[in-house]
């Protein structure tokens, strides 16, 4: 199979207007990926699927990633070929920002395998996939508001007493029980029992 750079050159030749760049992977795995601009992404996907030298007929994995530092949300597609048994070719699509312009073209029409996984990305990251046939929440319930996999997600304050609080839970515990549980943790004797009686 051709390298990622060769593939990018070939795609650029085929889709002259498209912005395609290679994202290098510095780690030992060296699985480099192609960053596509959203608008021609579906055409490129169809090309990748049908090109006789590539035949990437199998989309294995769809991952949503939140990059607060880059100010975008990202979707990563891992493509393999079942016909030619090679891969992976990794595609990345990025939204413009993390708040309002979070629309990306759905690749479900190209690979049905994306159906549930894109729904999951929609559910957990809030990326809206256009032309997805059935874009609903999948793991969270329909009435749920936020997108829990985002890095800045703040979980609702449904604090439940925990005997051994750490980190964020400890912070929360302090808010709920101004003195008792924290003192309780510091002194195991009577106090470890005292919060239990409270809820």
């Amino acid at each position, binding site marked *: 199979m051709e390298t990622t750079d060769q593939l990018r050159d070939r795609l650029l030749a085929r889709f002259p207007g498209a912005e395609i760049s290679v994202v290098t992977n510095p780690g030992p795995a060296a699985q480099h990926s192609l960053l596509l601009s959203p608008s021609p992404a579906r055409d490129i996907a169809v090309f990748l699927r049908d090109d006789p030298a590539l035949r990437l007929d199998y989309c294995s994995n769809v991952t949503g990633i939140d990059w607060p530092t880059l100010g975008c949300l990202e979707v990563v597609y891992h493509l393999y070929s079942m016909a030619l048994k090679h891969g992976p070719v990794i595609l990345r699509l990025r939204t413009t920002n993390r708040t309002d312009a979070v629309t990306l073209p759905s690749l479900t029409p190209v690979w049905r395998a994306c159906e549930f996984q894109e729904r999951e990305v929609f559910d957990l990251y809030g990326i809206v996939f256009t032309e997805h046939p059935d874009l609903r929440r999948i793991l969270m319930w329909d009435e749920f508001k936020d997108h829990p996999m985002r890095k800045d997600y703040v979980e609702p304050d449904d604090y439940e*007493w925990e*005997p*051994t609080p750490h980190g964020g839970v400890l*912070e929360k515990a302090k808010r709920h029980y101004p003195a008792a549980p*924290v003192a309780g943790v510091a002194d195991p004797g009577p106090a470890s029992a005292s919060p*239990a009686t409270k809820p």
Partner: protein
Amino acid sequence: MLGSGLLQGLAVTAKNLVGSFHDPARLTTVEYPEQRTKLPEAYRNFPFLVSENATDPMGTLRCVACQICEKECPPQCIYIEKSKDKKPDATGRPQLYPTVFDIDTSVCMSCQICVEVCPFDAIKMDQVFEIATTDRFTALLLDREQLAKPNDYYHTIHPTEAAEVDARLAAERKAAAEKAAAAAAKAAAAKPAAVAGLGEAGAPGSSTPATTKPPAA
């Protein structure tokens, strides 16, 4: 012919029905409270703290409150408070010790990671599994008195592993003792050096800062 597959199936079940009366391989039930299988040596369920001495478990805990296990525990079910002072451990060296060592067994998933990361062989996996209780919070929160079990107990549940650990510890202590002796031989001239050496031996634990845990208010 239609029905031959059904008859074959009936033959198999008949064989099992008859077999259940004479063939132990075809009646595999162990009737639990009365009958018990022998637990394999590797079986693990909930950690316990190893103490050197059964008579004074709190005084001879191997744990030096380094808090590595607390940090590494995936479900965050360990809570440790480090002591302010130092007490001599089994070898007589002054060490920190845990004033609080709680494990919330309602959260613990017996993954054994605390055991693997412990550099002092102070926490080991127990084999208890009948700990059902009607009190969800306090009864499942084990404190250090409940967690401490003597080394002999460790030997009874994991004999092979315990023997290895003892051998290793003995070797380490011997090496440390030799080092200390060598240092003592050199001593008179440079007394402060020996003290520094001791401090170094206890270092991996005591120097690990409790970064994850905000100080209790």
